[in-house]
């Protein structure tokens, strides 16, 4: 009797496992054919491991990325930045502006010609000056200020910039800075971590080949993160904008200041000037978004201050001799259609607005004079 029950259980388990496997294959095929998420193997093919930063854009990668809102061709050149051309040798009359940042700079949502970096280059070169400006898009999806500093170190000898613009996304860079603080210290990673990484590399490769596993992995990571947070009282979202932010936001500000100081120092040593650009989150521009988020934060017991994150970053950088550009006023004046609805990144019009405002800033602050 007991054997029969056990056999029945095994039979049921085998059936369920078979159904799971068949559906797995079905979802995998469907996602590969119609899926458009960043988990798509094609999109993931844009990246490769980096021993210092963790990951970076893969030199020579070329993909087509399509979602409901856009379809773009993305090319990564040999230097590992998004560009249709190679960096090449620097001509005597050429001046290079390297714009560092995250996905808001990389801008996979729009064709390369419509990114604000490229539009800025066109605008700077449209005045018949004997100097030729080259604006280099140094944005990498998911980077925070710390990774951007490390990326700058690898780009300085290749790009030889005359001006480095560090673009801070005020929406998440304070949190990102805290999350990557360990990278800033550099040095050897603990041996256990290295061993663990080696053991999981094979698993990661397998996961990377499957869209279903990629998404499941992200869900598990998010759940794990939330589980670990439940030890304390629940925290209202958007802490960077909170009236009473968590202590880590203060740490994030200190790290950002340290990163900018370091960037300035290293850029100066390489003969380049430095500036900082602040990019707002969509809800700072879109009133409906803001109302929804304000209510959500309020329900979670917090208070959302719409421009607090940018103001805090601006404040902490105020006494540094680094000119600062804030894209918020121009984007807010332009209206709500400067961000995509689903992907919350800049639309082509948003890129135009930023390019115009950034050009004005570069000229007004005389950052281009005497380059």
């Amino acid at each position, binding site marked *: 009797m007991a054997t029969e029950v056990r056999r029945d259980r095994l039979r049921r388990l085998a059936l369920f496992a078979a*159904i799971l496997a068949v559906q797995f294959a079905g979802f995998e095929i469907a996602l590969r054919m119609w899926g458009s998420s960043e988990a798509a193997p094609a999109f993931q093919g844009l990246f490769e491991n980096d021993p210092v930063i963790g990951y970076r854009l893969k030199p020579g990668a070329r993909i087509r990325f399509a979602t409901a*809102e856009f379809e773009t061709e993305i090319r990564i050149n040999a230097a590992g930045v998004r560009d249709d051309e190679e960096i090449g040798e620097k001509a005597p009359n050429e001046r290079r502006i390297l714009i560092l940042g995250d996905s808001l700079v990389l801008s996979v949502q729009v064709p390369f010609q419509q990114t604000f970096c490229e539009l800025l280059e066109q605008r700077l070169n449209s005045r018949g000056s004997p100097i030729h400006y080259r604006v280099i898009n140094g944005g990498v999806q*998911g980077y925070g200020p710390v990774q951007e500093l490390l990326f700058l170190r690898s780009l300085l000898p290749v790009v030889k910039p005359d001006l480095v613009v560090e673009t801070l996304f005020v929406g998440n860079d304070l949190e990102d800075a805290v999350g990557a603080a360990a990278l800033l210290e550099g040095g050897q990673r603990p041996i256990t971590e290295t061993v663990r990484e080696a053991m999981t590399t094979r698993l990661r490769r397998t996961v990377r080949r499957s869209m279903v596993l990629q*998404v499941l992995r992200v869900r598990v990571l*998010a759940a794990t993160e939330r589980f670990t947070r439940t030890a304390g009282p*629940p925290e209202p*979202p958007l802490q960077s904008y909170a009236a009473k932010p968590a202590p880590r936001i203060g740490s994030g500000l200190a790290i950002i200041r340290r990163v900018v100081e370091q960037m300035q120092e290293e850029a100066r040593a390489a003969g380049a000037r430095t500036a900082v650009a602040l990019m707002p989150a969509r809800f700072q521009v879109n009133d*409906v978004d803001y109302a929804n988020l304000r209510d959500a934060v309020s329900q979670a017991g917090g208070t959302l201050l719409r421009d607090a994150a940018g103001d805090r970053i601006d404040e902490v950088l105020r006494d540094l001799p680094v000119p600062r550009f804030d894209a918020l006023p121009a984007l807010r004046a332009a209206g709500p259609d400067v961000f995509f*609805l*689903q992907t919350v990144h800049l639309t082509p019009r948003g890129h135009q607005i930023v390019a115009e405002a950034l050009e004005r800033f570069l000229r007004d602050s005389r950052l281009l004079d005497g380059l």
Partner: protein
Amino acid sequence: MVFNSLQFVWFFLVVYALYRVLPHRAQNWLLLIASYYFYAAWDWRFLGLLIGSTLVDYTCALALGRTQSPARRRAILCLSLGFNLTMLGFFKYFNFFADNLHAMFGALGWRLDFVTVRVLLPVGISFYTFVTMSYVIDVYRREMPPTRDLVDFAVFVAYFPHLVAGPILRASRLLTQIDAPRRISREQLRDGAWLIAWGFFQKIFVADNLASLANMVFDPATHPTGVNVLLGTYAFAFQIYGDFAGYSNIARGTSKLMGIELIENFRFPYFVRTPQAFWRHWHISLSTWLRDYLYIPLGGSRGSEARTYRNLLITMVLGGLWHGAAWTFVMWGLYQGLLLIAYRAAERVKWFNDWATGPGMVARATSWLVMFHLTCYGWLIFRSRSAEQVGAMSADVFTAFAPRSINVQALLVPLVMYTAPLLVVHACEAVYDNLLVVPRLPLAVRYSVYAATFYLTMLFGNFGGAEFIYFQF
């Protein structure tokens, strides 16, 4: 603390582990402490209101049980109802009336400075005041005896699965289950687990994904064409259903795991053909409450037709206002009342009655289609932020439909994707006329549904903060 939070998962695991090892009376104490903790997790300051409401109605019901004098019984009932309605009125509607007073007197050039205080809305107040009021009214009507056990009564009011969003339970159903020792069957465990999984699917896969479509169309800054307003309204219809029915299913499921049966709150409301049927299938616990404690005491359909229509209108307008303190909810209630009246009046015409309720295939399909769109128009009113928006969006639908402007990629495709699995399961449930048919399907079919529910929720569910994938290999 919401059901779809990991805080709730921890909470429930701990409570459930203790619940399974404790004897009956200790289980009730545990449920009471857990329920108060659950409520205090939202805002502990309002716990006093919940306890106050419990004590007042417990005392009033006991007093009703002790006296036979009709006048005294009426006075006790009025005391209880007065307390509950004053509390509900103050916390839920003070801001609404204050704002409207401000606007009205402001239009006359007068400033009203005494109504500038802002009142916070305690979570679940609309639900638990209705629960306690129904208990006192039932005792007053001698439909049930008052309970002497304060702990049992407090659990009945605060029972965490139904505390903040229903179903609105009657004492005759829940109090008796709390009072009696409970045995949890294997069937309850299986059905409870499925209801929880299905509830999460309805919430995370259906409702939270459709929310972005509805938000896009109902954003006052956008000016969608009529066809896209229609799609956005469909999205909202399934969003609100997925959200609310999902919550109810999780509530029923968690309660089943503890051996306590809650009522079905939604039963294929979008498959019906008349407004009368819609209200028998949508938010059943509220509509039956309104029927038993408002519509019938007003006279129901016992008087003249005009009186019945008046009763229907009053019931539905107050039902609309129950949903929230805003004029759009009043408009929605009025609209639902007028729909009920119109169908009731038209039922006397034979061809209409045959069409709306008859068995013919064409009549069934067309009357369903008409009813579904009438319901959706109600949701357009419900979801709009103002009467002006209702007017503008209605004008878009009726005068600027522009079918060629349909937004296939951003609206139609996701709408179909997020509603089709829900409708397939509901069609199956409707065929068997059983909301719990899935756990009773043949093994292979059942497992296929379980696996698909898992994959769809995990792969396409909207989990909040995990929308973007930052690759970190």
